[in-house]
């Protein structure tokens, strides 16, 4: 450790750089990974061997019980049905909300008059707690997939719309003039300047909106449903089954992580020009 520190200070003081020995150093990303795994294992161990014995497993369950439950769910297929149902409303709502959000965001950002007129309405609608709209959605659309999709879309829409609008308003007017001077029409300007310029904002919002989509679906299922992960968790709570609740949460967490990583991959590809030596 001290060896490492003295090398660093030497390098900073302008002396010739010392080549690090490859044999006794761990690459930083491996170290990060190792500590991550250790931390995860430690949390599980504390839960399993300290929390569970002290508190009542009735309340806190335990990692081993949760693992067994997940295994049961997977082998008898119940989790697949519930998960697919939740995913269905998540994806449809996410896609619809995002598309509408991008479209309306573009319009409100690009056409100043429309933006000026609509902005306060958006603020008002967005400030409504969406859970409170649940009863209305059910009244209108019944208790099957549709109200959950609407719940998801209503959450996703505002996140994506607000960001798209900001991104479109943020476009450097000089870039627009470059194309305008070349005689480009509005549609070309939209496609060649505004969309690529706002893409960073839109991707950021798609990433932020993803957990919201999952939240919307689960809330929708908790309000009224007979299927889905939200229903499953609520049902487990109803029969005082903490293991079932935790198992449901683990499933949602894994799904959320996978989705977030997928979005990040897409974003990395589309914004490679931001990276200094990006290729």
């Amino acid at each position: 450790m001290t060896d490492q520190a003295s090398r660093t200070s030497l390098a900073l003081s302008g002396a010739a750089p010392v080549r690090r020995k490859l044999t006794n150093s761990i690459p930083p990303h491996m170290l990060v990974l190792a500590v991550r795994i250790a931390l995860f294992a430690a949390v599980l161990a504390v839960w399993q061997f300290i929390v569970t014995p002290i508190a009542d497993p009735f309340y806190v369950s335990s990692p081993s019980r949760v693992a067994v439950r997940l295994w049961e769910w997977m082998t008898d297929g119940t989790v697949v049905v519930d998960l697919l149902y939740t995913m269905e409303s998540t994806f449809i709502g996410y896609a619809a909300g995002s598309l509408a959000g991008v479209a309306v965001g573009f319009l409100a950002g690009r056409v100043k008059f429309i933006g000026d007129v609509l902005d306060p309405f958006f603020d008002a609608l967005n400030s409504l707690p969406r859970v409170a709209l649940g009863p209305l959605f059910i009244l209108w659309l019944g208790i099957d997939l549709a109200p959950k999709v609407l719940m998801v879309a209503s959450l996703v829409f505002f996140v994506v719309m607000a960001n798209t609008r900001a991104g479109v308003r943020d476009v450097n007017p000089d870039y627009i003039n470059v194309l305008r001077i070349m005689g480009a029409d509005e549609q070309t300007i939209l496609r060649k300047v505004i969309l690529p310029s706002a893409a960073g904002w839109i991707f950021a919002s798609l990433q932020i909106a993803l957990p919201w989509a999952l939240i919307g679906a689960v809330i929708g299922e908790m309000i009224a449903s007979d299927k889905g992960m939200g229903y499953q968790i609520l049902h487990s709570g109803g029969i005082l089954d903490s293991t079932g609740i935790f198992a449901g949460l683990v499933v949602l967490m894994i799904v959320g992580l996978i989705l977030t990583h997928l979005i990040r991959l897409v974003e990395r590809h589309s914004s490679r020009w931001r990276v200094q030596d990006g290729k």
Partner: protein
Amino acid sequence: MFTFKNVSVEFRTSRGGLCAVDRVNLDIPRRKFVCFVGPSGCGKTTLLNAAAGLISPSTGTIYYGDAPRGGFSKKIGYVTQNETLFPWRTAAENVRLALELEQLPQEEMRSRVTHYMRLVGLDQFHDHYPRQLSGGMRRRAALARTWIYQPETVLMDEPFGALDAQLKLVMQRQLLQLWESSRSTVIFVTHDLAEAVTLADQVVVFTARPARIKAVRNIDLPRPRDPYRLHFSPEVQAICSELWNLLEDELTGETLQ
């Protein structure tokens, strides 16, 4: 080519009207290289923006050819003072922009981009993004982006203002090469007198704000010109000091205000 008839531009600000350009009458001959010089902030850029069609004059008319200046078209190119390469496109993709609008076949686009990238000395940098290029390289890419569609008239607003003296000479030489090959009409705004004299057929000197025409000086140096040699030559220096005398009054006025 361009004719300014009694052109004034006034901006409305919180403190009332601000006159940037005051009754300019000027005729830019076809295929000539004309430089605008004047104290900074005098309204040269405003006049150029009006010529480009980005703003319309408060009074007076700008004619292009015989007709009043209409909408935007590929006939007029504009290289602005700001960095306006699209950061999400590579250098070659930026240069290709105007050709995409014409929807030329891929093969032709590629060969023209290659040609112009070589002309401005960027043939090794097709796939670099603007942030990976130096300031001079970005300037050259911006030049190529406009010249590639061969506009009849090219407006340039201090395109080399931010570059160091040596790089400026390199860029001036490249610009003259581009111009000799196409002979567009050029209006070039600068505050560097030597640059104006080296490049131009005609130098238009403006007063401090609001911009009025103070003098028009023809430069009869033979072409093709080599900025490397010309820049420090006695002829250029003589014309520069003559123009400087005109400008000097304007600058003193500025500091007194």
